[in-house]
């Protein structure tokens, strides 16, 4: 499985679709957008930070584990860091696979696992 993991301080630019083979039949993409209200509180945006080397390593580990269960051809993961205004994407994930079932399950589980274990944090304000 081709794996691409990146963090960026700028607006996420969705990379052009690159098909590793003509056996890819499903491309599933997820964009997580910053919402205006969270916990009943109006926001202008959120601030994200990460422990990047560990986050990259944890994500690679999670993706490898998931690939054993839901074999996929490629995963692209991009998380934005710093200030992200409401309506913009904090997260982009693309999964390619032969059939949609694997890509959908890989994607759903990857995000669940990220939210449980990958050292990335959001906060309503930037930290010193």
């Amino acid at each position, binding site marked *: 499985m081709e794996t691409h993991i990146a963090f960026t301080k700028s607006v996420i630019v969705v990379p052009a679709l690159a098909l590793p083979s003509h056996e890819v039949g499903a491309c599933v993409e997820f964009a*997580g957008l910053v919402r205006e209200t969270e916990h009943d509180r109006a926001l202008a945006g959120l601030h*994200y*930070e*990460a*422990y990047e*080397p*560990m*986050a990259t*390593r944890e994500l690679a580990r999670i993706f490898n584990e998931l690939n054993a269960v839901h074999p996929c051809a490629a995963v692209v993961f991009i*998380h934005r860091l710093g200030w992200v205004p409401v309506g913009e994407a*904090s*997260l982009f994930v693309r999964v390619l696979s032969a059939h949609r079932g694997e890509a959908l399950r890989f994607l759903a589980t990857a*995000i669940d696992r*990220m*939210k*449980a*274990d*990958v*050292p*990335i*944090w*959001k*906060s309503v304000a930037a*930290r*010193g």
Partner: protein
Amino acid sequence: MSVKLLAFAQAADVLGFRERGIDCEPEETPRAILARLAPALDPATLRVAVDCVYADWDAPVGTAAEIALIPPVSGG
């Protein structure tokens, strides 16, 4: 030996720093280091990572280069 101690998110808020070089012994545990350097932080509210891998609070740090305090994560 010298180890880099990293603090993220709420842990950085409480400690007032994000990174600091500390001295410790290979047989010292993350729990002992936290109690010594940051008694305000309760290890039950945090995870600890040693060289970018989640570790046991009670396992000696050995030859680690980096110890990180990981509050509950909230990416996405």
